């Protein structure tokens, strides 16, 4: 019996576009735009100047804060500009523009060969930090921070989030099929760093091939592959933990509060590459798909490639897109322009045609209760949306657990009144934060 959680929804997974397509290595772009903010936490400042020559893998921006992660050049070439550029998450951000010299040369000493088993945990953590690895599922939380929980939190399990529950996206799926060994190695390194013996890989049942491949790959490592029921949001951290180890992260808490660390497939691969070969995080697998894309693909893209370039690699648009999204359709961010760059957290580039988008006019809530049934967090989304309309963030916070909402979008998906519940929640959270800041 596949395991599951309370609530959730069943959107069409739309993975048929790209599930069977092997990862294609994108050609080196002529120019990359690398934002200095690639993660959640303190922003980086550029350590190169306009005109500098840089090599692939060279650090170009850095920050001293603990919760931060350095940024590396993803191609070799000349720094053409350091200026404000559009950013897929923050709207705008200082970016370093590198024009390719066509050589695609690694910085000196890379790649290298290293036996991870001889390395100390702290040394590995340092390598992870140096490599600029962040959570690649989309949240972009610096991985070395996640791997260094405070000592009072006893961690006993590592969960690999391979559910990939977002419709359309297949990047993790392909990575598992094509690089199962690296996935397992990355996981084992992470387990060593965390000092845990229990490792789980949660994969949704709609990827039987991946389950089979991973089951084979983990033999002898003690890692367990857990097939999960295909249901959104199976891959949300909290639901995943509930399903696999049957623990509930307390309100306002983190997975480590229940002794668990959750990693993304892409992240552990990056860890394996960094630790074994010394490679920093400068490229990632991204699914470029959607009804408006001519030829959807899974691409290995350099960080800093623009969405436009990526889409061009997929044969351009079939029809003019109604929405361009970074990430999946349930939690991704809609973009207002196509020249934004791929960042470390770009798991997908989704160009939805108008027929994919089924919005419709917002109507008053009819209290049908579908959102309540769909909410994996056990909230009352309908009330949150109604309170959002009135801006009553205090009531929402105190009586309806506003801050526990993970914004998974299940409620909006099922809502027959087409209410923008997640937007209301974001709005209320913003108001709450503003009020808190005032105090």
């Amino acid at each position, binding site marked *: 019996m596949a395991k599951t959680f309370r609530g959730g929804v069943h959107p069409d997974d739309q993975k048929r576009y790209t599930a069977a397509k092997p990862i294609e290595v994108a050609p080196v772009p002529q120019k990359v735009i690398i934002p200095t903010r690639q993660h959640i936490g303190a922003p980086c400042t550029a350590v190169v100047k306009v005109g500098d020559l840089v090599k692939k893998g060279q650090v170009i921006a850095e920050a001293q804060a603990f919760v931060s992660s350095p940024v590396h050049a993803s191609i070799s070439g000349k720094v053409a500009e350091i200026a404000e550029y559009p950013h897929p998450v923050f709207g705008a951000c200082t970016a370093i523009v590198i024009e390719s010299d066509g050589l695609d040369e690694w910085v000196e000493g890379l790649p290298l060969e290293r036996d991870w088993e001889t390395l100390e945990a702290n040394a590995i953590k340092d390598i992870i930090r140096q490599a600029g690895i962040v959570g690649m599922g989309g949240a972009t939380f610096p991985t070395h921070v996640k791997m260094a929980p405070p000592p009072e939190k006893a961690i006993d399990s590592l969960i690999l989030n391979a559910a990939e529950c977002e419709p359309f996206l297949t990047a993790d799926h392909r990575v598992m099929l094509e690089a199962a060994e690296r996935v397992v190695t990355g996981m084992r390194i992470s387990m060593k760093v965390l000092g845990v013996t229990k490792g789980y890989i949660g994969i949704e049942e709609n990827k039987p091939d991946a389950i089979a491949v991973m089951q084979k790959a983990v033999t002898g490592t003690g890692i367990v592959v857990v097939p999960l029921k295909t249901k959104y949001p199976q891959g949300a951290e909290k639901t995943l933990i509930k399903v696999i180890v049957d623990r509930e992260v307390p309100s306002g808490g983190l997975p480590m509060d229940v002794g668990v660390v959750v990693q993304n497939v892409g992240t552990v691969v990056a860890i394996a590459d960094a630790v074994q070969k010394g490679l920093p995080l400068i490229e990632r697998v991204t699914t470029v798909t959607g009804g408006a894309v001519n030829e959807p693909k899974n691409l290995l893209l350099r960080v800093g490639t623009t969405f436009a370039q990526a889409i061009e690699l997929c044969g351009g648009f079939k029809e003019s897109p109604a929405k361009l999204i970074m990430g999946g359709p349930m939690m991704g961010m809609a973009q207002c322009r196509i020249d934004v760059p791929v960042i470390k957290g770009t798991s997908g580039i989704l160009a939805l045609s108008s027929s994919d988008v089924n919005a419709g006019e917002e109507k008053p809530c009819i209290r049908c209760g579908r959102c309540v049934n769909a909410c994996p967090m056990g909230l009352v989304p309908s009330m949150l949306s109604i309170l959002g309309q009135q801006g009553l963030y205090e009531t929402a916070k105190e009586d309806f657990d506003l801050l526990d909402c993970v914004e998974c979008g299940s409620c909006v998906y099922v809502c027959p009144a087409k209410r923008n519940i997640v937007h209301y929640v974001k*709005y209320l959270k913003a108001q709450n934060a503003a009020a808190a800041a005032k105090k």
Partner: protein
Amino acid sequence: MSTSVLILVVLASLGLIFGFILAFANRKFAIEVNPLIHIVEDVLPKGQCGACGYAGCMAYAEAVVLNPDVAPNLCIPGKEPVAKAVAELTGKTAAAVEPRVAQVKCAGSNEKAVRGYDYAGVDDCVAANLLFGGPKSCKYGCLGLGTCVRNCPFDAMTMSPAGLPVIDPDKCTGCGKCETVCPKKVIAMLPLGAHVRVNCNSRDKGPVARKACTAACIGCSLCVRECPYGAVKVENNLAVVDSAICREQCSDAKCLAKCPTKAIRPAVLGIVPGTEDQASVEAACPSCVKSTAAAG
């Protein structure tokens, strides 16, 4: 007759019981609520706007009565008369309240401002601002979704068809509630009596601002050079007018004619910027007439 006597006896004893219970209670359990608080609260306009910095009119009344350091002129909606009344009641001296009125520092109407994307979501500026700062290309301009209009405690604002809020100067009390709720901080308080105003909030550099909106202040400094009194400055690519200097010294408002985007305009209230007619300009800013005529 005996009934009459009985009536008197019953009622008299009632009166005695009731009266003495009350009197006794007054001694024993007296809680003096300063009645002045209620009187002061009566004087206040009860907009509950919070412009005074207290949580509503009652809270201010309490503070102004009980705390000698609280000034009597904090009620902005009440203007002069209320300040005077409160001062009189509390025995404090009232300094003048400078009358002021809300001003939308944006002329980026639907046709003038360029849209960056098509917004689909909650009909509220704060919510729209969460998505890359709203649909307009200009990241400083009015979003036009009416958060200020909905929050105005005095019903002084309406959303014009052009997509900019219009403030009714008769109803606006200058309480500043709109200023607080606006996510773009595009609303500011203008001293009542100012002659000219800058209808832009963009701190972008000239070309960027111009590209986003044809009504933008591009920070060209022509106005600064034109003004002999030093009433105009450019800070962060945005012209700023010192209305006191302007009102007292300027007689010809040459800055208006020179502004290439018409971001500086005569301060005519109650309309969308850019739609002033000559008569209203004359009334609002006599010194502006010549230069608008010259420019127009």
